[in-house]
């Protein structure tokens, strides 16, 4: 008995002792230590071209090499070609990429094709589960797994925010005139009716110097706006029993009609605006409201204005004058996002995994989301709470609180098999809307296209995937 007690105690001590170093170290340190055995190798990672890739090119890549001796080759690919390139590499079996940036709505397709490496065994081996719990629930619970397996680490807190000009909204004369006309306070709009009234009111009072609102109207943003507004007004994409598209309902018609009508109080030519056009208009003070991803808020505050890489961003004329709010109706679209994954055809899977664990870890990711020149947005609870981040500009606490709240309330992008085809149908629909086609006609056409895609994918297959997606808390407003 004594012997058994002794052996048990010895085993306990041994286990505790063995576990102690791991417990002392965070996920970043564990990844660095484990990766040193791959020193001298080179791993490649697919990253969105442009500002996003400055993160691995200028910051994380060189730092990882210094820490571990592993070189990082960054393969820059435009967003609209990333899916194609990843799949082409997988289908050819070339194994040109080790680690990947994957848009979460592609995960069902890529995972089913076998292009992504399941990460669970590595997560357990390198003790990463605890730190994954720090990722905001909207991303962790919805963008990390497919069919019960982890295929990627959510790494970008994409979500739509409403930005508005505090100086205009708080101007006593404007407030008084607005209340006299509409009977309620001039404040960030709670619904789209209010948004339209406020937008038209400001345009009537201040155009052409300032217009009530401006939006990014070319692909892909408008289709995310449609997804959000359609669901918030009560629309459902499909009949879950038959998988017939129901986007051409009265709700769809209402949303498209409103979206089209809103262009009238926006600057002329808004139909052609892209991300940069809209950003420039807001930063130059030409529009009083806009909805976009979190970098707008940072750049509007002047964050990173001295950076060489951000010289193309117009100097903000509205720093200190911008307020942040939830989008009308209070459930913003998460809109794109990025996961870090490992390619199933990689010849350096373990080294690639360790790199993405290090990138995604609490410690490294906090540094990365504060890089002013990249587009990675806060996605961890610890990011929103970071004292350092909250002190970067005077309104940073309000900004981070709104990003956090928006993430918590965020609506998921539709994510089905061959989602890119449904996305294309939505994009074409919106483009036809701006061209002046009848909303009902284009909605009927979109529904037909949805049905044709579903038919081709297989109704039963798609029904099963839709059922899983629709059951997620962020799929439809409860």
């Amino acid at each position, binding site marked *: 008995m004594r012997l058994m007690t002794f052996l048990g105690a010895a085993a306990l001590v041994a286990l505790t002792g063995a576990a102690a170093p791991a417990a002392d170290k965070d996920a970043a340190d564990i990844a660095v230590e484990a990766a040193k055995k791959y020193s001298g190798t080179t791993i490649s990672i697919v990253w969105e071209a442009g500002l996003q890739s400055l993160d691995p090119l200028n910051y994380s890549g060189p730092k990882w090499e210094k820490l571990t001796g592993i070189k990082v080759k960054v393969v820059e690919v435009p967003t*609209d070609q990333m899916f*194609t390139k990843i*799949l082409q590499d997988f*289908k050819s079996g070339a194994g040109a990429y080790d680690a990947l940036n994957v848009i979460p709505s592609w995960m069902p*397709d890529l995972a*089913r*094709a076998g292009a992504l490496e399941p990460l669970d065994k590595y997560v357990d081996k390198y003790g990463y589960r605890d730190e994954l719990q720090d990722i905001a629930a909207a991303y962790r619970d919805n963008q990390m797994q497919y069919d019960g397996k982890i295929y990627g680490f959510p790494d970008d807190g994409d979500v739509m925010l409403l930005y508005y000009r505090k100086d205009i909204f708080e101007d006593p004369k404007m407030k008084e005139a607005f209340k006299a006309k509409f009977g309620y306070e001039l404040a960030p709009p709670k619904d789209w009716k209010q948004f339209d009234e406020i937008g038209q009111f400001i345009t009537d009072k201040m155009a052409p110097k300032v217009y009530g609102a401006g939006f990014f109207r070319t*692909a892909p943003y408008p289709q995310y706006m449609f997804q959000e507004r359609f669901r918030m007004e009560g629309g459902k994409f499909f009949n879950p029993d038959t998988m017939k598209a129901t986007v051409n309902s009265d709700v769809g018609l209402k949303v498209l009609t409103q979206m089209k009508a809103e262009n009238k109080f926006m600057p*002329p*030519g808004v*139909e*052609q605006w892209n991300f940069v056009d809209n950003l420039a208009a807001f930063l130059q003070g030409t529009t009083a409201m806009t909805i976009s991803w979190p970098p707008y808020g940072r750049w509007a505050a002047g964050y990173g204005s001295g950076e060489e890489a951000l010289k193309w961003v117009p100097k903000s004329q509205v720093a200190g004058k911008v307020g942040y709010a939830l989008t009308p109706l209070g459930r913003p679209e998460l809109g794109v996002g990025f996961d870090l994954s490992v390619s199933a055809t990689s010849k350096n899977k373990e080294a690639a995994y360790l790199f993405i664990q290090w990138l995604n870890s609490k410690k490294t990711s906090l540094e990365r989301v504060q890089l002013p020149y990249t587009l990675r947005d806060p996605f961890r609870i610890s990011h929103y709470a970071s004292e350092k981040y909250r002190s970067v500009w005077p309104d940073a606490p309000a900004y981070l609180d709104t990003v956090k709240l928006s993430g918590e309330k965020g609506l998921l992008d539709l994510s089905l*098999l*061959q989602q*890119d*085809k449904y996305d*294309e149908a939505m994009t*074409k*629909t919106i*483009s*036809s809307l*701006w*061209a*002046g*086609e009848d909303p009902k006609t*284009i909605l009927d056409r979109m529904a037909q296209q949805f049905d044709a895609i579903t038919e081709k994918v297989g109704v039963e297959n798609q029904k099963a995937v839709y059922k899983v997606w629709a059951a997620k808390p962020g799929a439809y407003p409860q």
Partner: protein
Amino acid sequence: MMSSPAIETTKPARGRTFGRVLEDHLPYLIIAPAILILLLVGLFPLVYSLIVSFQHITMTENDTSFAGLMNYAELFKDTRLWAALGHTAIITVIALPLELLIGFLMAQLFIDRMPGRQLFVALLVLPTVISPIVAGATWRLMFDVRFGPVGQILSFLAGEPVRILWTVNPAYVYPAIIICEVWQWSPFMFLLLLAALSNVDQSQLEAAELDGASYLRVLRAIILPAIAPVVAVACLIRGLDLVRIFDIIWALTEGGPGSMTETISLYTYIQGFSQFETSYTAAIAFLVIALLTVITTLVLKRMELAR
């Protein structure tokens, strides 16, 4: 015993025959390896695509089982495909005569010696050497509703702000594409026609002038017949280019608004490299090859008859 002289006489005859055959066919034997390689390089992708077009390969399925004519039957039901072919035809039918006419007028202008002719010709040809994707992107900026010079010039002429959404408004989107296309490729026609016009028999022109023939009569009776073969080849080259038009439209409209300016090349690209309908895309490619073969054969036959 009787056969031995015969054997003696046939041996040298066989040797001569082999030598003659070798001599006659030596050039073919020398170029045979090169032709074989060219056929392999040229034919292999064609044959491979043909095989793929009878399979089920898609984004997620590497299903190489025989699909019969399924993909080809699908072509007839695909309204977007026929619309894309229609858009391609519209652009070709409008842009080709415009390029020919402008190229001819420019060539007529520059046929006479004038000071700085070479410099002007070099400048006029510049659009042709620009990459079409760059030309499309440049014209997209030119048509920009806020900063584009096209809008500014029109506003100046109209005396009030003119805001045309060239790449959004259905009424202007085809004119925008055709302006860009004609701007870039008329100089190509100009170059070919300038060379053709330079070779028109001067003595015939002088004789016609002495006879007091009008310009239109000279054009119809002397110039056009003389340059007809060059015009036919130029139209064939540009016509085939227009059927394959991709870059300019991709940069200007990406096939929008909706699918309104989606040409057959854009549609094939989207099906193949965005939606990964590999087998179906191969079937589309063969449809296009068949159409182009028919058109090219008809044009060549017509040229042959004219000759």
